[in-house]
């Protein structure tokens, strides 16, 4: 079984708001100058912001905030966010990968940006409703 992919727009303003809310003020997420100085092509999204968007998709599919039992990702590629009104897009999709011993549903998750996978080994275990 596959879920309807969910698309999330990500702009620089989103990164600034997430920095404030999460307390992660690493300048690679808001300063082009700093990001370039450490060899990045430009400002990139917080990995945990991407994971939060995937979390939104998972809770929506699972049907409740507390339906998520386990949630894990590997950050395999940065999400560059250009300084434009449109920013960029992250597309999240999921496939059911069977059941756990406890009877929960195991989801394999993917997140892509500009057609490239930005997470690997991403999965969630969700409680059945």
């Amino acid at each position, binding site marked *: 079984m596959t879920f309807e992919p969910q698309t999330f727009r990500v702009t620089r303003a989103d990164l600034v708001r997430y920095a404030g809310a999460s307390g992660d003020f690493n300048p690679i997420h808001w300063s082009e100058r700093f990001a370039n100085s450490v060899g990045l092509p430009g400002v990139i999204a917080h990995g945990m912001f991407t994971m*939060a968007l995937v979390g939104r998709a998972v809770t929506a599919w699972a049907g409740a905030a*507390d339906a998520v*039992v386990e*949630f894990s990702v590997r950050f395999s590629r940065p999400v560059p966010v250009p300084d434009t009104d449109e920013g960029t897009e992250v597309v999240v999709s999921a496939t059911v990968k069977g059941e756990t011993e406890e009877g929960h549903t195991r989801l394999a998750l993917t997140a892509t940006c500009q057609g490239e996978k930005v997470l690997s080994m991403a999965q969630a275990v969700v409680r059945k409703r």
Partner: protein
Amino acid sequence: MPLDQSYVGRSYPPTEPYQVGREKIREFARAIGAADPEYLDPEAARALGYADVVAPPTFPIIFTMASSHRQIVEDPELGIDYSRVVHGDQRFAYRRPIVAGDALVCVNTVEEITSRGGHDFLTTRSDVSTDAGEPVVTVWAKLVQRGEE
């Protein structure tokens, strides 16, 4: 120099309780675009069986990252060069939802240190419980310290 393997298994003292605020949950939910009423409206949350507004799944990163950074990453004897660190993996295992009003204590542990291809990998584990000792969530972060150029 590779990170000191003798740190594996080391746990740090329990943190002061992190007070989960209703406005902080709202702020975090809005920042990630989570608009469902259980994140924002205490009445809607109670109608769904939560004691107060409920936190989105990645909310614990706020206090687990800050406290493991303070205790482990900034431990001068471990000697991590944070300018070379990138976030590799992140994992959460939930026991019960976090709601506004919770007071949450973290016990941070160095779970694993490995080296490969000139890079060091440090996995931290944060065991999060209420100040009354009820387990809430366990959070793992793998940090990658890239090799020196």
